[in-house]
């Protein structure tokens, strides 16, 4: 049909075949997935795109915020009065402890000095507001309104007025993501307050937690309070974390299944306190090899 030397006009040019394009894009996606999952090297790209998308996100959040504000405005006087009375009662109940806190702290310091122990690290914190739960159905994360601009860094612990909520896992300039304790990938070293037994508490999804790798005859009872052990160098020791709810001691397994419920309002929203990064205590002198650098062998565990 075509005259020699004249190609037909490109009416039907549509680029590569759909299947070829599909293979290309699927390959790129798989590479991205593996890179993000195994090597965690895509955080910089995330920060760049997230900074660009941030205004869009705020715009999308505005109607939800407005609806929340309206709901709060319309919440009845009775609710507020009840809440007020409750708060006053709680304040009175804790007043005794609060008033004696200074005295106790000083006494503690003196006793510790006597015992020649290291002073407990003072905790400094930054109040942040939980904006919303991340819309990822496969994980338990919330977004708070402070980011690197306010000195938040990944790895910091997040608590509320009752106990530990989670850990900052991703930081953007103006907001950050907090992985809740109930997330399946989140673990926290704890000890049983009653017996001092140390263990690792991991999220089990669906708002519950599980105490892992404890022998079937371990000394744990339903109702026990778990507090942070502070062994990881991330969480300060002694923060309340969870309460043991149910224990399945099946002799056919070597470990007991210990179900716990978080103490803090992990799945609720409100204000939280982001604790400042904790500096791990230096290794003792005698443990160091002669000639070894001071910083070596010391590591800050994340998660």
């Amino acid at each position, binding site marked *: 049909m075509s005259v020699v030397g004249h190609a037909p006009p490109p009416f039907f040019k549509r680029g590569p075949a759909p299947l070829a394009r599909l293979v290309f894009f699927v390959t*790129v996606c798989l590479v991205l997935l593996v890179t993000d999952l195994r090597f965690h090297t895509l955080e910089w*790209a995330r920060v760049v795109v997230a900074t660009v998308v941030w205004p869009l996100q705020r715009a*999308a959040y505005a109607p939800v915020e407005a609806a929340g504000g309206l709901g709060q405005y319309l919440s009845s006087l009775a609710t507020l009065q009840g809440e007020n009375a409750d708060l006053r009662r709680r304040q009175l109940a804790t007043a005794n402890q609060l008033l004696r806190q200074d005295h106790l702290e000083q006494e503690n310091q003196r006793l510790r000095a006597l015992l020649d122990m290291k002073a407990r690290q003072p905790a400094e914190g930054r109040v942040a507001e939980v904006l919303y739960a991340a819309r990822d159905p496969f994980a338990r994360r919330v977004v708070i309104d402070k980011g690197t601009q306010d000195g938040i860094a990944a790895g910091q612990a997040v608590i509320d007025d009752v106990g530990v909520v989670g850990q900052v896992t991703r930081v953007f300039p103006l907001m950050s993501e907090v992985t809740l304790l109930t997330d399946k990938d989140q673990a926290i070293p704890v000890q049983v307050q009653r017996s001092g037994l140390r263990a690792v508490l991991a999220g089990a999804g669906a708002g519950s937690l599980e105490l892992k790798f404890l022998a079937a005859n371990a000394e744990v009872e339903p109702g026990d309070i778990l507090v942070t052990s502070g062994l990881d160098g991330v969480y300060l020791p002694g923060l309340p974390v969870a309460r043991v709810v149910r224990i399945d001691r099946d002799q056919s397994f070597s470990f007991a299944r210990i179900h716990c419920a978080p103490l803090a309002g992990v799945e609720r929203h409100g204000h939280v306190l982001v604790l400042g990064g904790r500096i791990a205590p230096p290794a003792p002198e005698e443990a160091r090899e002669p000639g070894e650098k001071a910083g070596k062998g010391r590591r800050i565990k994340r998660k």
Partner: protein
Amino acid sequence: MQPTHSSRRILLPVKSWFIALSLASALLLNLVPLGRLPGVPDWVALSLAFWCVHQPLKVGMGAAFFLGLIMDVALGTLMGQHALAYVLLAFAAAGWSRRILWFPLAQQALHVLPMLLAMQLVMLATRMLAGGEFPGVLWFLSSFSAAALWYPATYVLLLPQFQPVERDENRPI
């Protein structure tokens, strides 16, 4: 171009800026933080499927890939999770577009539903392999609500292309 291949209405040509605007507003709707509310449709998937069915030459896997990446960053999910699902959705929708457009709108929605469900299954498989938690069966409701929205979405997204029906008594064809 007609709304469906069996329709006798002729549509005006589509405007590229309107496609971009509709996809951007779908993205904005997806960013509204509704938490774990079940049954909220994935607006981006719906509008992407719509344009891949109606304009397979203009919107395809490239657009799906970039929208997916933005979704991944904005929702904080695994990088490539939405991108992979959207690319597969765009491929299926473009491949089926000639078939789908012969059906009336309700049956078109029945064609779109399995595609959206397959997209969610791809996301589920990706995240389960990565060690996420199972989000519950109610999570699949969002595909059903998106498919139910196919009927209104068709009229909203084709609105700028409709032209007034001109009847000429002398030429009744």
